[in-house]
């Protein structure tokens, strides 16, 4: 009587399939991921022509090598344009909240909406085009500018 031979090692494809099954079991993806991804399409429903990003102090390297800026230091500056309109944003980013100071050039009194995933806040600029939103959640932010020719920014990720 002889010992049974050891089971042959699985070939690569069988091993890969086994590994895929185990990873899927042990590291499932939260269902909220799908909802989050699906909801991102809501940006298309925000009224306005997408403005073009022309300056971001983070991308310009002002934030240092890591692109991160400690809370409470110099605000991040972002500028979008659309036609003759410029939208200037200063984001003062705290640990959980951010303050948004903005200006429209040329100045005009119009309604604005600060959007973030899952929420929004309405404001109005003054006659010089200045506006301000305090205590916004530290989330990706999009600003929609009303008026005769509505415009919206892209997502600014704090």
């Amino acid at each position, binding site marked *: 009587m002889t010992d049974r031979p050891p089971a042959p090692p699985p070939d690569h494809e069988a091993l890969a399939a086994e590994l895929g099954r*185990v990873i899927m079991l042990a590291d499932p*993806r939260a269902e909220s991921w799908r909802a989050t991804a*699906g909801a991102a399409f809501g940006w298309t429903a925000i009224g306005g022509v997408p403005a073009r990003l022309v300056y971001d102090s983070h991308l310009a390297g002002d934030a240092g090598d890591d692109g991160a800026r400690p809370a409470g230091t110099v605000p991040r500056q972002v500028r979008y344009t659309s036609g003759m309109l410029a939208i200037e944003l200063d984001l003062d980013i705290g640990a959980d909240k951010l303050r948004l100071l903005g200006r429209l050039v040329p100045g005009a009194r119009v309604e604005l909406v600060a959007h973030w995933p899952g929420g929004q806040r309405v404001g109005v600029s003054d006659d010089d085009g200045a506006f301000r939103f305090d205590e916004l959640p530290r989330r990706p932010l999009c600003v929609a500018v009303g008026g005769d020719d509505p415009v919206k920014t892209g997502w600014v990720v704090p």
Partner: protein
Amino acid sequence: MQTTAVADLVTRARDGDQQAWDGLVERYLGMVHAICRGHRLGADDAADVNQVVWLRLVEHLSRIRTPAAVGGWIAATTRNECLRVRRMSGRLVLARDDDLDHVDEPHTGIDAGLLVYERDRALLDAFGRLGDRCQHLLRLLLADPSPSYDEVAAALDMPVGSIGPTRGRCLEQLRHLLG
């Protein structure tokens, strides 16, 4: 999914078709998850990256020159976002090619407690002993749906031609670790 089908989804999503957008999500969500987990992001950071990637994509849709290549764009954007998050939290560790041969204490970022069978635990343990880059590559290739080699190359910033051979070496090493 064929590239023509992906291109069609992009074109329709550009026109405001939510179903087409959902189709893109269905096609690439597993890849985004695999990339995030390959970078060992925690649950909150990974969820943030997922959100930013899709927000960037919807904003970027109208500017994509080659709709069929959107998967590569998603892969590269996810990778960059993961690196950004890791830099911000001071956890950046550059993976080198020789990481393929690096065997260390098991570390996968996966909770083996969800596994019932000892054999599965052993496989996960062996997987955790692979180098970071091997783990990342295998995890990505095993995502559901499976990404194309072009997308894997974009996610890992590696030549397409080296993916197959590297995969073989990683699986061989995994088999060796399993005894």
